[in-house]
């Protein structure tokens, strides 16, 4: 497939069996590992043998700690006064010449002030209003799909649905909505991803995003009646209304909202199709009992963990899992590993749509940075599966999925499927 053909062979230069490595060399932050879907055994070994684990010298990301057990991850997430988000929430350090402040990468009190401005868009009042709009989009997308032909589910369904949702939340010019998809991909792309050629290209494209949204801001700010979209909310709220004069902060928060609303649900929507195909007994169970959809949605989000990790920086010397972490060191919470921790979930690698504690998954994080759009994401997945079940006997995976080359965005670029009509 196109992307697979162009990848840099060096990313595949890793030992697939982590048990053959000396423990100190077990370094899970390798994009190629995730591209191959081979990360599971790495985390299994770390959970068992060294749950808080130091990698002193990752080639791309430098020195970092891996936290791999459910309870330890939750502890880090809940203690924001020890483990700071300031300055970045992925293992990759921000480009020093192009720093994008955004509230997910801030500590209180600024985090709280800025999050509060945009939180209502995903809040209860808006949710009820969004449901019919989401359903309309889902129906239009599904009814436009070919029956019996092979196509890429990621592009035709997962990307299309989440992009429409974002365009609605931003009140973004409809015909140009795929710009949002592109900016999301560019923002999270690593050098080995094949999405961008260089950091210069990333900056240039993100500045285009800023320019585009600056025009939207001016237009929304000048309206007498305040709109309910995210740009209007920021343009009119006391704690953010001067943000346009801090363009990098505006861009940072746009990137946060675009990525947060895009990659996550997109990859869960693809993952559900793959998981049900790999587990035909679960697909049967679902067909027999569509009431399981809400619980299945949580199980898909657990099983996939669409963002593999979040990172923090220790604000002080501290001890975690018996290890001495020094002030200033990077601490990576591998949510994907916590979601497969046998101490938290029975038979954790199994996909079980009626798993009783599926909602305990950590894909949304815990503590003050917990996902703001979790209910919108769940709602999209629920409605999508309700409408899929009404229409198709099966969404059949007919080829190998292609995964993202990333240790952060955990998902798919291609998932070839064929629809079997009811």
């Amino acid at each position, binding site marked *: 497939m196109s992307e697979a053909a162009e990848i840099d062979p060096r990313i595949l230069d890793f030992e697939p069996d982590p048990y053959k490595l000396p423990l100190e060399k077990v370094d899970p932050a390798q994009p190629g590992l995730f591209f191959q879907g081979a990360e599971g055994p790495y985390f299994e070994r770390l959970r068992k043998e060294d749950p808080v684990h130091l990698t002193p010298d990752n080639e791309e990301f430098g020195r970092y700690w891996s936290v791999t057990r459910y309870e330890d991850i939750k502890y880090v997430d*809940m203690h924001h006064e020890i483990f700071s988000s300031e300055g970045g929430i992925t293992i990759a350090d921000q480009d020093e010449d192009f720093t994008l402040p955004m509230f997910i990468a801030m500590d209180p009190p600024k985090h709280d002030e800025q*999050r509060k401005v945009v*939180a209502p868009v995903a809040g*209860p009042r808006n*949710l*009820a209003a969004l449901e019919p709009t989401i359903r309309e989009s889902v129906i239009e997308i599904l009814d436009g799909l070919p029956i019996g032909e092979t196509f890429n589910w990621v592009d035709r369904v997962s990307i299309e649905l989440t992009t429409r949702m974002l365009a609605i939340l931003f009140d973004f010019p409809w015909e140009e909505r795929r710009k949002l998809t592109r900016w999301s991909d560019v923002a999270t792309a690593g050098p080995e991803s094949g999405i961008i050629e260089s950091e210069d290209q990333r900056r240039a494209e993100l500045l285009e995003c800023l320019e585009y949204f600056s025009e939207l801001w001016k237009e929304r700010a000048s309206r007498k009646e305040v709109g309910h979209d995210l740009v209007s909310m920021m343009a009119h709220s006391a704690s953010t209304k001067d943000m346009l004069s801090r363009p990098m902060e505006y861009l940072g928060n746009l990137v946060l909202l675009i990525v947060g609303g895009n990659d996550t649900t997109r990859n869960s929507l693809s993952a559900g199709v793959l998981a049900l195909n790999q587990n035909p007994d679960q697909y049967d169970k679902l067909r027999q009992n569509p009431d399981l959809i809400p619980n299945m949605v949580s199980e898909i989000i657990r099983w996939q963990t669409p963002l593999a990790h979040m990172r923090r920086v220790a604000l002080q010397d501290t001890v975690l899992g018996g290890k001495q972490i020094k002030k200033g060191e990077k601490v990576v919470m591998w949510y994907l590993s916590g979601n497969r921790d046998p101490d938290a979930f029975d038979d954790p690698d199994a996909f079980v749509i009626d798993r009783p504690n599926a909602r305990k998954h950590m894909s*949304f994080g*815990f503590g003050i940075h*917990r996902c703001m759009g979790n*209910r919108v994401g769940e709602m999209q997945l629920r409605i999508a599966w309700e409408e899929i079940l009404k229409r198709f006997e099966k969404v059949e995976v007919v080829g190998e999925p292609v995964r993202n080359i990333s240790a952060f965005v955990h998902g798919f670029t291609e998932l070839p499927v064929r629809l079997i009509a009811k």
Partner: protein
Amino acid sequence: MPKITFIEHNGTEHQVDADVGLSVMRAAIDNLVPGIDADCGGECSCATCHVYVDPAWMDKVGKPEDREESMLDLNPEREENSRLSCQIPVTDELDGLKVTVPEFQM
């Protein structure tokens, strides 16, 4: 055993017997009261056990502490009488407590 009444968003009431020492959230979960998710299991870290305390009971229930306050504050629908029910221990004093469950947990 103290009795606690949970009122759903649609007005349906559920009166349950609560164990002293456990949380109000636990009383809801153990008695299958709908509308309390408690995703984090009761550690004040997900805010999905949000309830509105009957204003007449606010003095006895008390105000949230810092950690709870910072979680509650994330919710655009929080009110003066908002509490996370995992952070309210059941006591004999709370016999008769009434709380309302929001339409959606965040």
